[in-house]
């Protein structure tokens, strides 16, 4: 592998009890424990990985909606305290067991997919109901609505 001779490596070891002094571009400085600095690096990486996994998830759920559009009125992915909720609102009131089984299958598939290891998803199909009832399941902060589910 070619080596870039200009790269200067700084090794951060979690076992080290040192403090890190950070010099910002603005001229400000602050210190923090080395362990916290390492955890912050990991968090940034996890945020990026989560973003990528979320993209994969949204695409997979969109494909699922496409296969069931005959009984899907609306669909959302909403953030809850313990993870995400894929909420499907059906066009009919009667139980649709085939749709429920398919929803369980995609739910298990996602939960066991190592490429989606940062995703904690619940799934729920509501029979046709009022907007108020639907809203009570949605986060007021972050909710994605699938536009093509009409």
């Amino acid at each position, binding site marked *: 592998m070619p080596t870039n001779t200009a790269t200067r490596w700084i090794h951060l070891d979690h076992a080290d009890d040192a403090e890190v002094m950070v010099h910002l571009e603005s001229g400000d400085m602050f210190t923090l424990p080395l362990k916290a600095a390492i955890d912050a690096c990991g968090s940034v990486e996890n945020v990026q990985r989560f973003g990528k996994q979320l993209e994969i998830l949204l695409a997979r759920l969109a494909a699922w909606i496409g296969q069931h559009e005959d009984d899907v009125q609306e669909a959302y992915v909403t953030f809850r305290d*313990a*993870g995400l909720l894929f909420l499907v609102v059906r066009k009919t009131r*009667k139980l649709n*067991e085939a749709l*429920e*089984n398919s929803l*369980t299958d995609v739910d298990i598939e996602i939960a*066991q997919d190592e490429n989606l290891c940062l995703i904690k998803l*619940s799934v729920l199909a509501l029979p046709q109901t009022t907007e108020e*009832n639907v809203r009570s399941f949605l986060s007021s902060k972050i909710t994605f609505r699938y536009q093509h589910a009409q």
Partner: protein
Amino acid sequence: MPSKECHLAMARKNQQTLDYLLKELDQHSAWVATVAFYKALHLVEAVFATDPAIRHGHSHEERENHLKSTRKYSHIWKYYRLVWAASVVDRYLQDRTDDYTSFSEFMTPQEVKVNLVGHWLHQVEQSVNAILAPTS
């Protein structure tokens, strides 16, 4: 943390309530769905109590994640989720507005008896019994 025996005892109590409500199914089919869900929950917790990697589901979400992400529990999840989903319709949609007035629009009393109790809950129970059965 409750033991396996404690959860199985709670599941038996839920079954007694189910038996009572099933006598007047037309009046109480929605409650049957909810009690069936709590029976399923205790059955699952009985299994978790014997699983050193889990021991206890601390919330509905955590319990759910253990069930669907652990291959040996996928079959339980397949039917547990159906019971849970029906109980959500009962608990969160039934009485909220005049618009959705009757759980029987979602499942008829007969479907509750045959599908929900007779098949979905039965499948959960069968799987749990198979896991808890002593290996000789």
